[in-house]
């Protein structure tokens, strides 16, 4: 009950919302430029990450020295294997801490650009230097250079294909109303920009988990826009006399509880993953937290005001056309009305759409309740989801004007 009774003029404040999104996206763009593009994770750059846990406290320098003393290519010689030397100057080394590590500074993450495909020699060399490696708590991930290029291109394709498919779904959902489709698309692209931007600002590495989050968020954003737009379309039919921006605002407030609650449940699970999950899950949860929040935000505060703007712009254009047409009619009082009338023709059906006849629902509303009650019983077949689908399809195809929308004055 809380949101719908609020006198919150979301549409009226649209410039603030646009500015907020603009600021985040611009900040992200600056961060992107500053970092020379989005930092990519191991699966897209290739190389190795070796997460070494020692049974004692170590210093970064100590580990570095120990690694310097080894030439992996010679170690490989022992059993006829070829190893890339680890000391090529492009590896980074950093002390790390994991939940469950008791001793301080006993874990080091070594990142190399060359793909080391056998952790053994590295562990052995560190052991030999007196830094005992706890292999049970260490891990290595390594991706070859050609494979990482392939992963990157496949991921970009995945992103493009997912975007196209979602656009197709939007087009299918709002087939006859281009406006909704395009605005939903803008919201979608907004979310992708925000995710990439925030990642750049946080200087996090975009890895395959980021891609997974991106695709999930795209779906979430589309869904969120559809929910709100459905309500706007419905209200457009139910309250034709209310000005468009007010109607949109009412729709937003009506769906706000839903938006907040669904966002809350998803955020709860994500926060749990972020705070209790391991490193892998943490990274993934972060991307989703940003994306899902942005997705919910953009549907309400970006997409819906854009709808209003579009409509206003449309109306203004129509008025200009109408004014032009009428002035032309005035000027040339005689038979040059071919152009004018064709324009009028184009306008006419649209205006009709805007004015559905309200009496229908009134009539239905006065029908006694039992009729409504009878519905579930006739539909109570054991056919499971298919039965339900068929039944709902039926309902969807019918008139929506019988629906009384609560909360309207």
């Amino acid at each position, binding site marked *: 009950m809380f949101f719908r009774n609020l006198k919150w003029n979301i549409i009226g404040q649209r410039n603030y919302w646009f500015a907020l999104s603009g600021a985040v996206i611009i900040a992200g763009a600056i961060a992107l430029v500053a970092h020379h593009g989005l930092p990519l994770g191991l699966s897209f750059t290739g190389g190795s990450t070796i997460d070494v846990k020692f049974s004692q406290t170590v210093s970064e320098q100590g580990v570095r020295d120990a690694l310097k003393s080894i030439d992996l290519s010679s170690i490989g010689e022992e059993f006829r294997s070829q190893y890339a030397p680890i000391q090529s100057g492009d590896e980074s080394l950093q002390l790390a801490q994991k939940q469950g590590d008791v001793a301080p500074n006993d874990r080091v993450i070594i990142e190399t650009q060359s793909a080391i495909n056998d952790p053994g020699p590295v562990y052995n060399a560190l052991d030999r230097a007196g830094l005992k490696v706890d292999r049970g708590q260490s891990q290595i991930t390594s991706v070859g250079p050609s494979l990482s290029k392939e992963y990157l291109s496949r991921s970009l394709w995945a992103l493009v294909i997912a975007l196209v498919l979602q656009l197709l779904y939007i087009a299918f959902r709002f087939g006859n109303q281009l406006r909704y489709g395009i605005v939903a698309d803008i919201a979608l692209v907004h979310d992708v920009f925000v995710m990439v931007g925030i990642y750049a600002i946080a200087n996090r590495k975009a890895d395959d988990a980021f891609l997974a989050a991106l695709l999930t968020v795209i779906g979430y954003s589309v869904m969120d826009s559809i929910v709100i737009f459905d309500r706007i379309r419905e209200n457009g039919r139910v309250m034709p006399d209310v000005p468009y921006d007010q109607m949109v605002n009412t729709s937003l407030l009506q769906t706000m509880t839903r938006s907040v609650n669904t966002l809350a449940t*998803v955020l709860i699970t994500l926060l749990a993953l972020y705070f209790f999950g391991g490193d892998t899950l943490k990274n993934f949860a972060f991307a989703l937290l940003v994306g899902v929040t942005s997705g919910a935000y953009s549907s309400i505060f970006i997409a819906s005001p854009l709808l209003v703007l579009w409509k206003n712009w449309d109306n203004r254009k129509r008025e200009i056309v109408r004014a032009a047409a009428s002035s032309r009619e005035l000027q040339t009082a005689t038979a040059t009305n071919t152009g004018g009338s064709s324009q009028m023709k184009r306008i006419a059906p649209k205006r009709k759409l805007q004015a559905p006849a309200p009496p229908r629902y009134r009539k239905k509303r006065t029908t006694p309740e039992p009729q409504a009650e009878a519905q579930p019983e006739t539909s109570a077949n054991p056919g499971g989801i298919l039965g339900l689908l068929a039944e709902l399809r039926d309902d969807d195809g019918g008139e929506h004007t019988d629906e009384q929308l609560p909360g309207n004055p």
Partner: protein
Amino acid sequence: MSFWFRWKHLIKLTVIAILCVLCALAFTPLKKTIHLGLDLQGGLRTLVELEPTQDVPKITGDLLDEELLVLQTRLNGLGVNELTFSKVGDTRINIEMPGLKDPEQAIALIREAAVLEMRPLTKAQVAQAQSDPKFDPYKVAGPPVITGADMSSATAGTDPSGQPAVHFTLTSAGSKKFYDWTRSNIGNPLPIFLDKKLIEAPTIEGAISNQGEIHGGFTTDTAVRLANELSAGSLKVPTKIIEIENVGPTLGAIDLQKSLVASLAGLGVVLLFMLVVYRVPGFLADIALGVYCFLMLAYVALFQVTLTLPGIAGFVLSIGMAVDANVLIFERIKEELWAGRTTRAAVSVGFKRAFWTVFDSHVTTIVGALVLYWLGTGTVKGFALTLLVGTVFSLLTAVNITRTFVDGVVDNDLATAPALYGA
């Protein structure tokens, strides 16, 4: 007709209860039925690419099968319970070895072609090879007398002085060739090359027919490995490890525990949220969510899905999705109640009106998950798959099963006050 109307709720509830029991039977005991991925129990995953050589310019499907078999035979000796091999594309093999204790051994087994050759060298060449590291004796050696292909079996053992060695037995064709050659070369070296490297060159003391021994300065491990490799056959083309993921077992156990805590914490708070915000239907949705978890666990157990960290993330996220559908429906019911409908009518209309929105949300998620499953990298596929299956299940439980529960309560007038619906 009337029988159905009278008993339908009981019948539906019984069906759901039976379903749950069946699911529970499928996934108990958990430890045995749920296969943990190597990121949760430690182990090794590698992606191996076969590289064409001059002799074998193209990797054919037959060759891929053959090489897979060789790798399988080699790695089976490692004592890993759930070795899985899968072909990826036309030239790659993905190998997963959860619970593997010794990754180094496995990696060596994978990457070694294990081409054993005996090629003649002169005494001077052997001496030069031993003193000059830059000299490559393989280039000057004569054509092979016998190769690993001529061996019928190989075992690891020790030589008379107790040093690790590999004993081999030759096939009949091989022994004939070997006998003829050794007989005419007594006093000369017998150079043995493994993967084009000279590993030893003993002096021939007499004619050898069908059995022999290679010393080559082995350790027990390397001797076992070579014997294993020789028995399994050599690889026709070299293998290249292009991706590797090795997780220590303790680390995997820590991650498993953490992700379980995270999932349960998320699940718990969501259950509580639904109960507090939507009361009676919220409670019923919680039960439906329980059914959902049972279904997912049964799916994981029955289809032997390997549960990985990303898979758990997909599972947790699909819990959010399942609840999302219920939030949509219950919000709609509240609105219908405010509009002055009776509880019964509000529930019926609420479920109907919200259905297409719920359907939309599932379709858009499924689209993303499908693309991800199709094009995603190895680890992400697990996430995509559980999200996909979870989304389908959640459409079932969040709509149909919750509806069954809510109808049962409403039709029997168990909860009629709007306040019980959060309105």
